């Protein structure tokens, strides 16, 4: 569904943010895009939806070139940015203005999400709190039924019950022909939803793996002594002993700890990546 080849992108001529980046993405999955601050996550998603253009290389999304900004393409891609600016109108007027850009927009679905998120629907958008605005926009994004949905830190600003609602809503709507890419630092909020992990580092996607592959190669464990683990790769001191990432010799079925995995990958890059080649 997304096919990126040797994509290079930068805001200034001699300072590239992404360099020779390659990425293939399939529909029907929820991808978690992880990377440090300033790694280029937003630049990448802006290239995918046609807001920014590659300096060189190709970016293909659903068979189209995003930079061409063909309305037919734009109708099926939606980007939910982290910072949102909304006009001072009611929810209904907002729908009247923006929903027509998305032919598959489902108003009933939108109002169902608004209800589930407990948003008073007669309020004007600017009278709402940051979290409420965010929930309106998440509902809008999902109701577009866009084939490619890019979300930047969607759970930022959401209260505790809303995070739960968010997970339920996403689990209920994702379709086989749809793709959701969530870039986030709040991995604990979303790690039960994400089934593919993308890691952006050194201007490239250095890892693109399904969660089940990661836990097949690596074991995530809590131990009292480090010598209990054969082939540890990375560890962090925890309250009682250590949290460890190790090579999964014994074919254990451990649960992926995304934060630990990310830290392990950044600190032991070659060793971790070599498990996947």
């Amino acid at each position: 569904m997304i096919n990126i080849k040797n994509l290079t992108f930068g805001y200034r001529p001699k300072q590239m943010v992404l360099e020779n980046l390659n990425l293939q993405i399939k529909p029907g999955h929820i991808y978690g895009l992880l990377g440090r601050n300033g790694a280029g996550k937003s630049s990448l998603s802006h290239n995918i939806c046609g807001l920014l253009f590659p300096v060189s290389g190709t970016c293909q999304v659903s068979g189209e070139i995003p930079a061409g900004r063909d309305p037919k393409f734009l109708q099926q891609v939606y980007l939910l940015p982290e910072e949102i600016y909304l006009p001072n109108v009611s929810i209904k007027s907002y729908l009247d203005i923006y929903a027509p850009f998305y032919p598959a927009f489902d108003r009933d679905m939108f109002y169902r999400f608004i209800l589930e998120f407990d948003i008073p629907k007669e309020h004007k958008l600017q009278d709402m709190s940051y979290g409420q605005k965010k929930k309106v926009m998440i509902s809008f994004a999902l109701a577009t039924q866009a084939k490619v949905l890019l979300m930047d830190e969607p759970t930022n600003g959401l209260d505790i019950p809303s995070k739960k609602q968010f997970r339920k809503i996403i689990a209920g709507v994702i379709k086989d022909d749809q793709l959701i890419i969530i870039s986030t630092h709040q991995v604990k909020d979303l790690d039960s939803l994400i089934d593919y992990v993308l890691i952006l580092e050194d201007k490239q996607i250095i890892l693109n793996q399904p969660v089940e592959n990661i836990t097949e190669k690596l074991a995530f464990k809590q131990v009292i002594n480090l010598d209990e683990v054969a082939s540890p790769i990375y560890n962090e001191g925890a309250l009682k002993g250590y949290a460890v990432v190790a090579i999964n010799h014994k074919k254990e079925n451990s649960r992926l700890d995304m934060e630990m995995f990310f830290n392990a990958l950044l600190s032991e890059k070659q060793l971790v990546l070599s498990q996947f080649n």
Partner: protein
Amino acid sequence: MDFNNTQAIYLQIADYVCDKIQLKVWKEDEKIPSVRELAVMLEVNPNTVMRSYEYLQHQEIIYTKRGMGYFAQANAAKSILKTRQQQFMNEELPLLFKKMQLLSIPVTELQNRYEQFINQKNN
């Protein structure tokens, strides 16, 4: 649902399904929730539930009827009980023994405690 941090989520979901069947909340030869319904209920990716259901099919705990969804096998509760007993004997008991040895607790002491526990439960 609160998942623990150690075991793969798809196995925890499989365990959850087994709990329901063993406790007869979901009855044998009856339809169990669809992949989508369970994903929403547990706030997980439907693909993960799919993997759990495939795993349970392989274990012959559930089966699928074309176009009708998933059903609990006729003798599922019994076979889950059997598997769990084996699991207890092979995995949990050695850990308990290790701890008992460490704390010098004789097996006879357990016998009394267990009888007390059963009596209390029955009263």
